[in-house]
């Protein structure tokens, strides 16, 4: 796979300065990745399944409050805490895309990975939610993504099916993957273009340039997890 090696490290930059907290990324992600809805009761209890969520924090006292939004998904750690703790190698590092993937068929549901994830990015199938989809609605399911059964863990894959599709298309046309050709669902849906996705190993790609911005930071940097997702400080810190 030498020709695919050059399209090395996929990464993401999220510009919090332009994020409006509209949750379009959450919806798009759910539709793209067949993420089931868990129902009112379970979601209310804290079992809502999202691969990406918009964390919302308030600053100040009412009525002078300002909201802070931060979309958080699996940070695709270079040194992922979830990987060594799985007893059956269900959460593994992909050599090719340098991202962290979940093998649903191998997962036995110890949920240790989710406990050890400092970003709480993982969702568990507590019940057979995907079997509860009423009949006409099952046509919305994306055929490119596995429908998970109960008892397995799942999480953001950087839309690995889209990465594969883009790589295959480029390979068929005998060229390298163009910058911006592969777009995960969240980035595609973002109305303010706050989510930038691309190849971090290419220094000229849009995502690489954005990741070198002086406003850059990564989540919980002190843990040394080497996340592939970079955030750009917002909230007017740098005049935004």
């Amino acid at each position, binding site marked *: 796979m030498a020709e695919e090696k050059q399209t090395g490290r996929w990464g993401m930059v999220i510009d919090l300065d332009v994020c409006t907290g509209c949750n379009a990324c959450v919806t798009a992600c759910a539709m793209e990745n067949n993420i089931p809805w868990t129902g009112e009761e379970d979601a209310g209890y804290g079992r809502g399944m999202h691969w990406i969520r918009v964390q919302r924090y308030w600053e100040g006292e009412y009525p002078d409050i300002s909201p802070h939004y931060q979309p958080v998904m699996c940070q695709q750690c270079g040194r992922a805490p979830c990987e060594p703790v*799985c*007893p*059956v190698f269900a959460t593994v590092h992909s050599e090719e895309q340098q991202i962290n993937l979940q093998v649903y068929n*191998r997962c*036995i549901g110890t949920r*240790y990975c989710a406990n050890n994830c400092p970003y709480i990015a993982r969702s568990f199938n507590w*019940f057979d939610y995907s079997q509860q989809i009423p009949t006409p609605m099952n046509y919305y399911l994306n055929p490119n993504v596995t429908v998970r059964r109960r008892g397995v863990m799942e999480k953001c894959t950087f839309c690995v099916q889209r990465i594969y599709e883009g790589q295959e298309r480029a390979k068929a046309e005998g060229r390298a993957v163009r910058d911006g050709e592969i777009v995960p669902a969240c980035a595609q849906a973002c109305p303010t273009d706050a989510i930038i996705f691309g190849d971090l190993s290419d220094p000229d790609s849009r995502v690489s340039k954005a990741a070198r911005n002086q406003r850059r930071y990564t989540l919980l940097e002190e843990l040394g997890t080497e996340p592939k997702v970079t955030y750009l400080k917002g909230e007017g810190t740098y005049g935004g």
Partner: protein
Amino acid sequence: MAVEAKSLSTPIHGVDDEEAELREQLMFDPRPREELNRMVMESMVHTTPRYWAVVAFLAVVVLVCLFGAWGYMIATGIGLAGVRKPVYWGVFIVTFVFWIGISHAGTFVSAILRVFKAEFRRPFTRAAELMTTFGLAAGALYPLIHLGRVWVFYWMIPYPNARWLWPNFRSPLVWDFLAITTYLLSSTIYLYLPLIPDLAMARDRTKGWRHAVYKALALGWRGTEAEWARLRKAITIFAFAIIPVMFSVHTIVSWDFAVSQTPVWNSTIFGPYFIVGAILSGVSAVVTILVILRATLKHMDYFIRKEHLDALGKLLLVFSMAWAYFFFNDYLVSWYGGYEAVRKVLFFHSSGPDAWIWWSMIVFNVVIPWLTLWNRRIRRTPWVMLIITLLINVGMYFERYTIVPMTLAHQRFPFDWGTYVPRIEIIISIGTLALFILLYMLASRFIPMVPVWEVREGQEAHMIRQIGKARVPTVSELE
């Protein structure tokens, strides 16, 4: 030796009291060998309608609460439990750690006290070893119960398979699996070895199905000098060998937490802290069971005396202090570290919605033992000891509850904070409690609850000697 037992006692009541206490602990009122055998045999075959009623009730509870509820959960989904994001581990893991802790009792009382020749251990080593085996049987169910897909649990076992995959030996869960199976195996052998002469004793005094079973289990024991020599050697080897196994088991259980990145879990002191907690909880459970056995099993008041509860009560006080020391050490250093996420969790423990659990833990594990167990009269009153030891075990359960769900509930991102409410976990936990009691009750009518030969050995070996003006209990060298 006897000197060990003496050093544990408080010399405030004068020499005569002390001597009387030792006389009781070492059972200086020997009865003829045949009478001892008869007493143990009678305690084993004697059943009342009330006994069978309790057994039937427990069997129903096990069927409904353990197998019924678990089966329903397998058919429906682990979501029947109260676990949620971010509290992915709940009461299942709490109860798992609790039972593994209980299982430390047998090894501690039997192996460590045997190695240190604490002579008062003799009449109740068997009772403690049985707790190890049944505690492990109850505890080892939980890693299965809590799995999302229990039907593929064997993927954790290293076996040749079509996927060409080993389990991930970097995962503490695999260490857990190996440690628990090792401990279950070795503790069962360790229970069995000292049982052989007693089984042979039972074989010679029974008829019918009991005779057939005991005959098979006694492995043709005749009691020759060579057999005794081999048995003593085997027991000594196992007593020494099982101690590191015991330490490894709860250390590895603690590593499930300590090797993770989770604030408060990630603590270097968790290994010894868990072991001390396990021994505190295990020895408490031994006292609980001894009090119950004494009241319900025939002739047990001869074998288990108030002085034994007294000696164990002193041990409990020491271990309660040791637990408090480790708890304080862990807490202080974590808090002093000043990491914001850790402080938030610790603050949540003592002031969150479940703070009563944390405070009850302090009261049951520290305040109550420290206020009561120093008192000789309290240590010698069985029903008070029953209450104290039950409370200590409740406190230890709360300790694990604090460590598992209450810590997970308050992780680094405030956006994901959430509280956990157990649901079906409670029913299944009651089910395993019933399983433990049921197994123990059935075993008490099948396995000689008192190691007769060990008691007799002690009675023959000890005597009071006059050395100068002092009267000293001594032990002749048997082992």
